[in-house]
């Protein structure tokens, strides 16, 4: 795995059905992982809605982002983060999420941004 200064942090702020932003971010993550570039994801703000279990995208004839997200461990993408405040502000239960994400307080979120070599935000 690459050294920290050669790792990417993909920051995504969109919910699962907000245009193609969430999918564009995920595609970049999967591509980077396929090239064995170290990559982490910060689910900020509305992006924490991506992590809800029991999403049924087919109800609106959409492709399931949640299904795609569950492939992340297979791609060895395990650095997953979300600000605790983003979940709290939306009344979401941190113990009932699709993926094991590391919850961060606001200071830790700011520190996370400093710790990666490059940041790409969506």
């Amino acid at each position, binding site marked *: 795995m690459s050294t920290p200064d050669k790792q990417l942090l993909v920051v995504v702020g969109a919910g699962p059905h907000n245009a193609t932003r969430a999918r564009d971010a995920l595609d970049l993550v999967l*591509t980077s992982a396929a*090239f064995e570039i170290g990559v982490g994801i910060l689910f900020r703000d509305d992006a924490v809605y991506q992590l809800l279990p029991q999403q049924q995208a087919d109800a609106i004839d959409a492709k399931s982002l949640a299904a795609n997200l569950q492939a992340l461990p297979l791609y060895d993408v395990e650095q997953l983060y979300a600000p605790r405040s983003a979940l709290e502000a939306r009344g979401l239960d941190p113990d009932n999420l699709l993926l094991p994400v590391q919850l961060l307080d606001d200071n830790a979120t700011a520190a996370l941004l400093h710790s990666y070599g490059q940041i790409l935000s969506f």
Partner: protein
Amino acid sequence: MKIAVLVYGSPTASSAAATAYRYARAAIGLGHQITRVFFYGEGVHGASALAAPPQDEVNWGQRWQQLAQEHEIEMIVCIAAALRRGVLNQQEAQRHGKSAANLAAGFELSGLGQLADAALNSDRLITFGG
């Protein structure tokens, strides 16, 4: 310095292409190199040769073409995002059985690996969101 630019907004629904262009021109003016501009998401609309804005409005795709030509900038358009939105070169039009191609000259369709590479191998990656 070697600078890569990411344009993630469409030229009509956002100012991303315009601001990124001004940034790139200023960077070149200061003696820096813009190595690659990557068009992703709605940004790929900026690479359509069929955009025909009125003469008294700026055609941002054309401005990018000129700048790229003068300063040897790679202009990469995300192929997956482009196919979804109907921005195709001749080869992709054939692959997908479409009647026309519209990728403007100077732009190249390629994969997201080019963005990951730009992020890690340029001195800076500057994102312009839509």
